């Protein structure tokens, strides 16, 4: 699952900075139903210029050379926009650097001699596939419930035909920055997916195009979310863990729309 690209092999990389000698404690679990445990690895000679994932690549190369099973972890774009590379690093989702995904965390944030504990996201709705890889498709189930707008697609409409005030566009765009990595669920002491769902609700509910399905969407997405996840107690850990800095205010917005959805006369939803 982990791949290496020549740069991280050690022989071709040019080390300008320090190198770190690390001790890693990584959750190893061969399969969904297998027992898992924390396994210690010594990893000397890590360049501080490496990203966290490149450090894991280095570990895996050495494991493969010793004919051991490499650590499975999910990754794709390695530039903080795909949302696949989440892991719990020393008790923090995506590690100690705020506002970034694991792939954007660099080893210069650590010191030689550090012990780094790496675990998969833990939630009932995120069953472990293998090692650090979890099945996050519960998030897809939430989006399927209403994270879309229904339009008759035709020729592209005139771009400015629906006026969107600047603060509205900004707020909707900030919510739409969610990459669905699941760090909010992983960081939440309650295992709640409130921040993810709220971001997906808000980026549509704020915009004029999202108004037609605003209340049916909110009701369906919240109720789907609650089939899989815990409840929100506003600790704020999700906001702190979010690599895209999605605001807790989106949850406030979603809560308001959910309660309103229960009382709204839906036949009047088209009125301004």
């Amino acid at each position, binding site marked *: 699952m982990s791949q290496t690209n020549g740069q991280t092999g050690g022989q071709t990389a040019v080390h300008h900075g320090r190198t770190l000698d690390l001790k890693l404690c990584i959750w190893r679990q061969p399969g969904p139903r297998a027992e898992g445990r924390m396994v210690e690895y010594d990893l000397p000679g890590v360049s501080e210029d490496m990203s966290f994932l490149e450090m894991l690549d280095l570990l895996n190369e050495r494991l493969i050379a010793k004919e051991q099973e490499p650590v499975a972890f999910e990754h794709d774009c390695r530039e903080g926009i795909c949302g696949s590379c989440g892991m719990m690093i020393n008790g923090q989702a995506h590690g100690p650097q705020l506002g970034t995904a694991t792939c954007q965390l660099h080893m210069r944030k650590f010191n030689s001699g550090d012990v780094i504990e790496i675990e998969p996201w833990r939630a009932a709705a995120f069953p472990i596939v293998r090692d650090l890889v979890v*099945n996050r498709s519960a998030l897809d189930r939430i989006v399927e419930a209403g994270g879309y707008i229904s339009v008759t697609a035709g020729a592209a409409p005139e771009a400015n035909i629906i006026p969107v005030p600047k603060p509205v566009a900004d707020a909707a765009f900030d919510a739409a920055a969610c990459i669905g990595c699941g760090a909010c669920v992983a960081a939440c002491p309650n295992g709640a997916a409130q921040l993810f769902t709220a971001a997906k609700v808000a980026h549509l509910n704020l915009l004029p195009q999202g108004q037609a399905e605003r209340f049916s969407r909110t009701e369906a997405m919240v109720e789907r979310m609650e089939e899989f996840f815990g409840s929100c107690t506003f600790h704020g850990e999700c906001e702190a863990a979010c690599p895209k800095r999605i605001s807790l205010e989106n949850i406030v917005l979603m809560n308001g729309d959910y309660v309103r959805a229960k009382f709204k006369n839906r036949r009047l939803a088209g009125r301004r």
Partner: protein
Amino acid sequence: MQQDQSSAPLRRVQPARRRWPWPLDLYQSAVGKKWAMAVTGVMLLGFVFFHMLGNLKVYLGPAQINHYGEWLRDIAVPALPRTVFLWLLRCGLIAAFAVHMHAAYALTRMNHRARPTKYASERDYVAANFASRTMRWTGIIVILFLFFHLADLTWGSLNPHFVRGNVYHNMAYSFSRVPVAAIYIVANLALAVHIFHGAWSLFASLGVSNPKLVAFRRRFAVGFASIILLGNISFPIAVQAHIIEDHGSTPYHAPTEQGR
């Protein structure tokens, strides 16, 4: 809906349930339970505030506070029989407590189901504070204290010198016992911590999302919790400091008193 192809299949943590009739179905959802907790929380905050405010009358002397105690039974008296309005308020409070605690219990169960396996490494919390992480414990302390408080100063069963209707005497005697004064102070610290998180997060549960209120919410929570804390712990401290002392106070007797 796409089929889950993963070898680690999804499990629902919430059992499928029959939908309750509107508007009770709101309470079936976790967001609805939080809304109910916020609404009942506002009721309880209102009670705690006016309870503290009324008790400040103890500083005006025995006649004032004992008169106030009688007045609480006399509210709306020509329209309703004596103590009926007080009992309506009490019933509202009991209902608010019941809903608040049931929602807390149900949500706690749900949260434990949603995170059945804890992290092996120690969590490094960034945003969660002491108040937010101890809500269920401070809540339990407050409810246990509530029964002690009722037994001490309402029913009188834990207060050997209890005189019904002589609020001043009962307070002065009760708080003169050092362990009892300590219990009141500790319980009010727990209450203040509980209120701090509650008074902030109720805005979020109610969906009050105006950005103009963002800074206000924190200030309100700190201010409200501090006022309640300072007011309430002032009573045991004042008794221990001999600022409040009972020198033969008597219950308030209205001119036309015909018995209780």
